[in-house]
């Protein structure tokens, strides 16, 4: 059975893209797995394979405007191609199963599939050919490069590289905003009632810096490791809090002021660093073994700095 589709992106599609980008109903933004016909394909037409995440499918059909071709949608549980390939759902088994399930060989006599390059961490091309007789061709990383790619079926080096430019990083900010807005307000309210306005603002600064500012400024922070980048950013945002608290009450003994102010320089950098360490999963270049080494080296530092800072903060709150 073949479902008809078009390359037109409607207002409704755009609304769904917007909702997915801000993290609303994203898990339900799915396409029915199966075989789709774009335009009027015949037996000679190309077959493109994608995931059943709505954004993945829409991006592909939009990029294929004006073409007559087939789109085979795999069941990746609503996850994009690269992440699904990493989990194995965009994988050799599901591909072979979906080809048989849709009787693909009746429609495509050229026995060739075009897969997105990032699907390669889940699909073994030679294995697919052995099991189905279909050749797998890896197209470019991004669907938007398909029109140019299809002229020669040769990808330029740029088409083969993942990138993480300013736009790619900025588009990640709204989803963090949606996820964090309620927890942030809750934490701020709790801190406000137990210790006042400045700690509540410090919590806000940690979350804004770690989740919204950090993704945007990753390349401009020195050092290579995410934890040390986070410590640097956290120290920068902690300094104003340190000075405000330190000079807040000139009549207080200097050591008391220092005792009240110094915890900001311990707690804020360690929490920002913890958040940025967790940002490794969102970026397209951190390796599994590298992240493991980062956790091993820096998590203990974050933990102890946080503990010392938190205890110091509580102690100086009670003795003054």
């Amino acid at each position, binding site marked *: 059975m073949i479902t008809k589709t078009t390359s037109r992106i409607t207002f409704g599609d755009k609304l769904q893209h917007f909702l997915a980008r801000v993290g609303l109903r*994203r*898990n339900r933004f799915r396409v029915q797995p199966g075989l789709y016909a774009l335009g009027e394909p015949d037996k000679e037409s190309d077959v493109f394979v994608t995931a059943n995440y709505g954004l993945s499918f829409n991006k592909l059909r939009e990029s294929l405007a004006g073409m007559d071709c087939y789109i085979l949608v795999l069941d990746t549980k609503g*996850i*994009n191609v690269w*992440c699904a*390939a*990493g*989990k194995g759902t965009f994988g050799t088994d599901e591909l072979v199963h979906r080809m048989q399930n849709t009787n693909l060989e009746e429609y495509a006599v050229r026995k060739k599939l075009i897969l997105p*390059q*990032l699907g*390669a*961490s*889940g*699909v*073994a*091309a*030679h294995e697919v050919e052995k099991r189905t007789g279909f050749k797998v061709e*890896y197209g470019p*990383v991004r669907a938007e490069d398909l029109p140019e790619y299809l002229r020669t079926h040769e*990808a330029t*080096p740029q088409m*083969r*590289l*993942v990138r993480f430019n300013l736009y790619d990083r900025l588009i990640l900010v709204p989803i963090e905003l949606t996820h964090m807005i309620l927890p942030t307000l809750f934490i701020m309210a709790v801190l406000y009632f137990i210790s006042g306005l400045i700690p509540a603002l410090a919590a806000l600064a940690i979350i804004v810096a770690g989740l919204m500012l950090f993704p945007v400024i990753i390349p401009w922070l020195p*050092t*290579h*490791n*995410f934890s*040390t980048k986070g410590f640097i950013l956290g120290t920068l945002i902690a300094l104003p809090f340190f000075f405000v608290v330190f000079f807040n009450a000139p009549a207080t003994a200097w050591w008391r002021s220092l005792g009240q102010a110094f915890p900001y320089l311990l707690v804020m950098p360690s929490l920002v660093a913890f958040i940025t*360490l*967790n*940002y*490794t*999963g*969102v*970026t*397209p*270049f*951190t*390796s*599994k*073994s*590298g*992240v*493991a*080494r*980062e*956790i091993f*080296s820096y*998590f203990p530092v974050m933990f102890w700095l946080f503990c010392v800072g938190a205890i110091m903060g509580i102690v100086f709150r009670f003795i003054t």
Partner: protein
Amino acid sequence: MESKYLETTLKYDAELCTGCGMCSTVCPHRVFAQANGIAEITRPTACMECGACALNCPANAITVDSGTGCATAQMMAAVRRKKEPTCDCSCC
């Protein structure tokens, strides 16, 4: 303070390579290049251990301990005492 990402688990045996070029095609960080009819690793530190090259090498000339480079997934796996970290979260 030095980078934790300079070493990777990527290993390549040039003896087994048939020169099909698949590793250069699938790598999203241009770690491989083709020279003298076989593959060579030209940007080893750029490897993110995604596993695409090893999975698509018909000659089994490449091995890599592939998996998620996500600290959240790895710490959750440690807490839940699972061997292989996976992204069970809906974040990706």
